[in-house]
């Protein structure tokens, strides 16, 4: 009994130390630099090695397995996996929305979870969307953003892919604090993690043309992934500024 309680506690305290270390590194670049798509990547050398590992993993296993998976499994079942995984993230979205002071979205997350877990066949369907209930996705990375932490350096995580030091803390925190997702003593019950992994495989297979074009057709897949991730993440967090676009009248287009 005692040992069962001990391990998660140890993990949590290790995470807490790691979080503090990483967060102190979250010195935000100037807001202007962020909105113009600037990149802060002091660990580029290490990141590129991890990226190399991720690409090798994709080439050797993930790509073909995912394509096989999405070829064999019919579309509606792939959708069900997505719904199921999304639904399991709703309790965490609820808590994070509260932490962000976004009570409206917390309510939406609770409502989605209640509806989809019951009349949505334990989350395998998504009647909430059919009823016009908006999505309620959020994560601990966004909570940290709302609390004023800057995104910090860009980091490439093994297997998971591109992130920032702030969002990496979010990913780890979300994974290990969601009781529906993670139970270290009962691996069979880590249902949320497995659902998420399966969903990611589905995405890799379903959008394989897009992913392949980034990973295998671009001149520098690392640089592409980095800029696309950062831009999209800043957009999700509402950090993009339309006025930061290069003024068409100010650019020298002579000769083009």
């Amino acid at each position, binding site marked *: 009994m005692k040992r069962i309680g001990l391990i998660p506690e140890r993990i949590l305290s290790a995470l807490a130390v790691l979080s503090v270390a990483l967060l102190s590194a979250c010195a935000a670049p100037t807001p202007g630099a962020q909105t113009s798509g600037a990149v802060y990547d002091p660990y580029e050398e290490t990141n590129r090695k991890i990226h190399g590992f991720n690409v090798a993993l994709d080439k050797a296993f993930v790509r073909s397995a995912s394509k096989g998976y999405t070829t064999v499994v019919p579309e509606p079942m792939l959708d069900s996996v997505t719904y199921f995984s999304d639904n399991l993230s709703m309790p965490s979205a609820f808590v994070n929305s509260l932490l962000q002071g976004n009570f409206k979205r917390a309510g939406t997350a609770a409502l989605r979870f209640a509806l989809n877990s019951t009349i949505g066949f334990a989350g395998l369907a998504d009647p909430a969307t059919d009823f016009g209930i908006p999505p309620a996705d959020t994560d601990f990375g966004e909570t940290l953003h709302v609390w004023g932490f800057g995104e910090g350096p860009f980091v490439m995580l093994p297997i998971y892919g591109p992130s920032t030091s702030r969002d990496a803390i979010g990913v780890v925190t979300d994974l290990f604090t969601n009781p529906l997702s993670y139970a270290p003593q009962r691996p069979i019950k880590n249902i949320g993690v497995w659902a998420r992994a399966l969903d990611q495989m589905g995405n890799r297979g379903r959008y394989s043309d897009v992913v392949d074009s980034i990973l295998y057709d671009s001149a520098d897949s690392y640089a592409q992934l980095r800029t696309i991730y950062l*831009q999209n993440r800043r957009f999700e967090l509402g950090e993009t500024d339309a006025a930061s676009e290069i003024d068409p009248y100010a650019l020298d287009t002579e000769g083009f």
Partner: protein
Amino acid sequence: MNDLNRRTVMTGIAAAALSTAALPRAAVAALTEARARQLIDQVVTDINRVIASGKPEEAMYADFERIFAKYADTAYIAAYALGADGRRATAAQKKAFSKAFQSYLARKYGKRFREFIGGRLEVQSVRKVKRWYEVKTIAYLRGQAPFEVTFLVSERTGKDKFFNMFVEGVNMLLTERTEIGAMLDARRGDIDAMIRDLRRAG
């Protein structure tokens, strides 16, 4: 048409007549929200027509390139993508790059348009940002959650043209500038070599 609408229209006509009389021609012809929206509607209609034509892929790419040349500010797009390296490019290199880059975009994004079969783009809103307009659309594709596609429209060239596009916040030109920069780095900054390879890329 109810009373209010009729009154609004009449006021509009009166205002238009007044401004035509009072202002120089250029000001009257200035880009408006309605025109920015119209341009994007036209682009979307033309793209949808190509997709629906069921032509072979190569023929579709040629059509996309024509649409692009017609509605996009191609000089701005090429200059942005080449970035600071544009400053040391010769006039011939700029021209060649502009042409190669257009075809590259048509191939690269043309492949994506396949995913648009059976889908649609809906214009949501138009707003003015500094000297250009931002047209927000939502893309509804089969089997995907709806996502945001934003076009930027200006009349820098004297005609209404779109000069950039964002998909869920990802700036197409910034992303392509990263790619062109990487291609140049891999070729030790040789612009001619980059242009040669760009003709086969995408």
